[in-house]
Structures are given as structure tokens and as C-alpha cells.
């Protein structure tokens, strides 16, 4: 049975989404190769058509681009950026990022729901970055999201699955791919997110700030694959600290 990651009409083998913009462009190809990456995000604002240090010039043909709307503060600004991405040939998959807080860079869920609707109506495959809030995720699904991307911890913090319990609720309740985005600091944390049933993991800072960037991308690839296998295998029961009663409480039943 195929175990592809399905987003909108596209299918992917790899479940490791790589961020860009935090390591040198010259390294892009090598990092993508060693991570087995099929989807790479990029900030549309870093695209410099016909200009210098243009991120698009460094992305291998094989990779599917996932442009993000970083810099957008409103749904309308997100739409402007998405349309620019389309004009630039980045395709229709868009990671919606709407942020009105420059300190923590936390996403604005309410405005993001509005943006999902606007972008979906415009034909985009909308993938909203969000605070893991089940109600907001349902609203995003209803507005036409193709996947939802809850944060594990504040972006760039490398602090791991701080919001794990809330992401798990989304995994159980939302019939869309749940892609953990932001805050994953180590491969073991990515593995844990995949064991929980997340469809994919996106990492950027954790890879970009490693001493050996391509080697860290490879480590993430393996961890994400391991987590996925474990999820599919169905993790066994974990015994609690206290043992379980040897004579069952329901043992009195006679019929």
C-alpha cells in the first residue's frame, strides 16, 4: 500500500519539508539531496527575479516549492504575496503565514482562516501555519485548507513538541494532513511527531544551525522515516508506573 503524503492533488514520498533562508544558498542542493527532500519552503520576499542572490536560482528542478507569505500581516497581504509567487513560477502550493507579533512571531489564527478562504477561492493549495487550536483547525478545513501546519514551539526556538498534546487532538480529529511546523529542534523530536501520526515535519533552524548542515538534514530524514514506520506499525501498549490488577474487577460476571 502506498504511503504517500497527499497534499491537494500532489503526492510525495518524502515527509520531510525543508525550510530555506537560514543557510547559504550555495548549500541548498546538497542539503536537499542528503535530506531526501521533495518539498522546500521559501520566503517569497527573498525571491529576486533576475537579481542577485535569488533563492529560486538555487532550488533544484526536482523539488516542489512551497512559498510562504512571511511578512504578511493581513489576509489581503497574504493573497498579494501568493499571487506574486504564482507569477514567479513557484506554483500554487502556498504556506500561509500571517503574523502580527514581531517578538514571538506567533501566527494569527483568526486572520489566517480568512486568508485560507481567500486563497482557496483563488485556486491556491492553502497550507496554513497556525497555533494548534482544534477549533481554528476545523475552521481552516472548512475554509478550504489542503493541510494544516501547527507549530510545535515558537519558530526558531528548537524547543521541540511543546504543544504536542494539542497537535495530537488535531491528528485525531482533522481529516487533513497535519504537518508540524516550527520549533522542532532535534531529529528525535521530529521522530516523536511522526509517531503521533503527523503527516510530515518541517524543519529549518534545527538544520541550518547545525555544524554540518547536510548531515543534519540526513539525520532528520532518517528520524522522520523511523517515526512514520513506528506509527504505521502501531506502537505497543506502554505500561503505567503502577502494575495492573491480576484479578480483573469485572471477574465477577457470571453469564
Amino acid at each position, binding site marked *: 500500500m502506498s504511503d504517500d503524503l497527499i497534499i491537494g492533488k500532489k503526492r510525495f514520498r518524502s515527509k520531510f519539508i525543508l525550510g530555506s*533562508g*537560514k*543557510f*547559504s*544558498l550555495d548549500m541548498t542542493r546538497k542539503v536537499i539531496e542528503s535530506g531526501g527532500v521533495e518539498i522546500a519552503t521559501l*520566503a*517569497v*520576499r*527573498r*525571491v*529576486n527575479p533576475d*537579481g*542577485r*542572490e*535569488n533563492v529560486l536560482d538555487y532550488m533544484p528542478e526536482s523539488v516542489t516549492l512551497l512559498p510562504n507569505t512571511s*511578512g*504578511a*500581516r493581513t489576509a*489581503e*497581504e497574504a493573497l*498579494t*504575496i501568493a499571487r*506574486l509567487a504564482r507569477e514567479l513560477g513557484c506554483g500554487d502550493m502556498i504556506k500561509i503565514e500571517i503574523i*502580527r*507579533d*514581531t*517578538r514571538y*512571531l506567533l501566527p494569527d489564527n483568526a486572520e489566517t482562516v480568512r486568508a485560507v478562504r481567500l486563497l482557496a477561492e483563488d485556486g491556491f493549495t492553502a497550507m496554513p501555519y497556525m497555533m494548534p487550536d482544534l477549533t481554528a483547525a476545523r475552521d481552516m478545513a472548512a475554509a478550504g485548507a489542503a493541510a494544516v501546519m501547527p507549530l510545535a514551539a515558537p519558530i*526558531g*526556538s*528548537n524547543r521541540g513538541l511543546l504543544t504536542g498534546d494539542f497537535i495530537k487532538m488535531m491528528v485525531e480529529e482533522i481529516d487533513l494532513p497535519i504537518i508540524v511546523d516550527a520549533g522542532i529542534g532535534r531529529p528525535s523530536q521530529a521522530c516523536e511527531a511522526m509517531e503521533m501520526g503527523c503527516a510530515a515535519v518541517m524543519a529549518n*533552524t534545527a538544520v*541550518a*544551525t547545525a555544524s554540518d548542515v547536510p548531515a543534519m538534514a540526513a539525520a532528520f530524514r532518517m528520524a522522520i522515516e523511523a517515526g512514520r514506520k513506528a506509527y504505521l506499525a502501531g506502537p505497543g501498549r506502554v505500561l503505567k508506573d503502577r502494575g495492573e490488577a491480576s484479578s480483573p474487577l469485572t471477574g465477577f460476571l457470571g453469564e
Partner: protein
Amino acid sequence: MSYRAPEDACEYMPRMEVVDGSLMESVLEAERSFDPGAYTSADVLRALSSDRLGPYDFGALLSPAAVPYLERIAEKARRITREHFGNSVCMFTPIYCSNYCDNRCVYCGFNRDNKIKRARLTPEEVEVEMSNIASTGLTDILILTGESRIHSDVEYLAMCVRTARRHFESIGLEVYPLNSGEYRYLHECGADYVTVFQETYDPARYEQLHRGGAKRIFSYRFNAQERAVMGGMRGVAFGALLGLRDDWRRDAFSCGMHGYLLQRKYPWAEISYSLPRLRPCSSHWEDDNAVGEKDLLQVAMAYRLFMPFAGETISTRELPRFRDGIVNICATKISAGTSVRIGGHSDVKDQGDGQFDLSDTRDVEEVRTALRGMGLQPVFNDYVRSDR
């Protein structure tokens, strides 16, 4: 609407907008309780070990007690910069459009009493200059003028911004403080960022140094960033011209707090700090309060640890060695191909004199190569206009 802080160097002039003064009161209050000499090694180590720094920790990093720990602070500053910005360094250049000035600031080359060659670019010259700058590949420009509402009025600034709109993505202004309605107008013309240096945050010293012109009004200048944000600007930059006052640590502390408190009030505002220190200029200003490279680095690193998400711009007043060193630790934006002369990007005009002397004359390509050589990623474009 009758607010007047006792620290005002002089009364507001007609048509100067009055805004709520709580931000300035909070910054001045914070500085009054800042005692650089009271910190100990333990305070510095505590600041170094915490994830989120408060004003007290920020003060510790600026204090003399932090000096023995500069290398450790640098390691942490670099790590935090990489986490927030990756290895990216944005490139831009300033364009000086006019050097006429109405003010009498004793330390400044543009002082109206100085006998320097004055000039102002015509609209055609602005077009030529900007076109030349754009041909270097830069997409981010900072428009500067001397502070003259007569020679560079708001319509003149609007002309410069509209011209820039045709050549650049990101447009900043470093001009005299304006009212929020004027900022809104210039924002609608295409400007998104505003830089205003408070110079010194000591109202008494400020009054001594700013002897004439609208700039004498301390609080009107102080509230410029707030009015800019009220006018719709996306980002604002802060700067204290270190060395104007007996203790640069106090000005650095206030400047850091100014950005910190403004962002708390307007959480969406993009904050950045500029890192100027006094350099020799044609005013023959004799400074006794010299700020060394080590001091400037200490300030820059303290800003980084206190405000991890804030941009930091390093001036062309500094030497290439220092600028390259500081972008490797905490600065996130660097100018290149700079000319501080009026008409310095073309041969359109008998050039007007500059405000200060440059210490880094490298062109865009040289700075780009230097950044790449250090394993950093030069960024030419980092902005999508919302009015596309």
C-alpha cells in the same frame, strides 16, 4: 492635548502633533533606575543563562561588569542571531538627497552654521542617482536629507519616495521627525520604514547640544517612531549617537528600552537598532567621551540578547574589519557602496559635502564577496510590497 514633559527642550512649535507621552516617561523612568556601576558578575552570568531577558538583564550586559565576559556574550549573541536570522545579512545603501539643515547641532557636519557646500538633488538628479544605485543590484534604499522643512519639505520627500518606488522594493526614510498624517502620506507614496536617531536620551545634555531649530524639541523627536507606526509604517529604527554624553551606557540602555517599549505597545511593529558612534566631522567637535570599538560591540550584543528578533544595522562610519566582525556576531544589515555626499552616486552635480567621513568605501560587489567569504548569505531582496 496639553501634554508638556518637563524635559522638553522648548515648547512645541505650531502644527507639531502631540501624542500620549507615556512611552517617553517610561523610558526616562527606566533610565533613572539604571545604575551601570551596581551590577556584578553574578548579574551578568544570570543574564547569560536566561532565555528571555528583562530590562535588568539588559542593563547587566551593558554594564562594566560584563566587559570580562565579552567573548561569552559574543558566542551567545551569534547563536541567537543564527536562530532568528540564519546566516543572512541584508544589504542596502543610503542616498543623501539634500544637506540643507535648519538645526544647530554642535556635533554635526550639517549644522546650519557650518560653512559647507550645500546642495539638493533635483527630481531628475534623484532619478539618475537611484537608477545608478539600482543597477548595483540593491533593492533596499534609505533616503536621507538634512533636517530642513524649507529645503526638503514633505512634497520633496514624497517625490524622492515615488522615484524610489520605481527602482526599489524596500524604502526607508531618515529625515526630520514628522506628524503621523505626514508619515501616512509618505507611506502611501511607498515608504515603509523610518529611522530617527534620538542622539542622546539625556534631556539636559540634549538641550546643550541642540542649540537651534525644531530638533531642540526632545519629546517631539522621541515620539517620532510612535507617530510613524501610527501612520502605517511597518518598521522603525532607533539610534543613540554614542559618545555625545559622559556615559554611553546610559544612552545605549535608553535606546534599547525605547524600542522594547514601543514594540510592547505596537506588537506588529518591526524594530531595529542602528549603531552609530561619534566620528570626526567638519564641526571639529572635540569629544571627551570616546566610544571604542569594544564598547560599540558590547552595545550591539546587548541589544541582540535583549531583543533577539530586532534588526541591527552597522554604519559605514566603521572600518571594514569591524563591520565584517560584527555581522558575524549580531548585526543583520549592512550598507554597501555608500556615498554620504549629495550627488555621490552620479556626476549630476557639483557635489554637496557629506555629514561625516566614511570608513568603509567598499562597493556592493566587494561587500557581497566579503560576506560570502565569511560563510554568510548576502540578501539583496527581503521584502514584498503590500501595495503591489
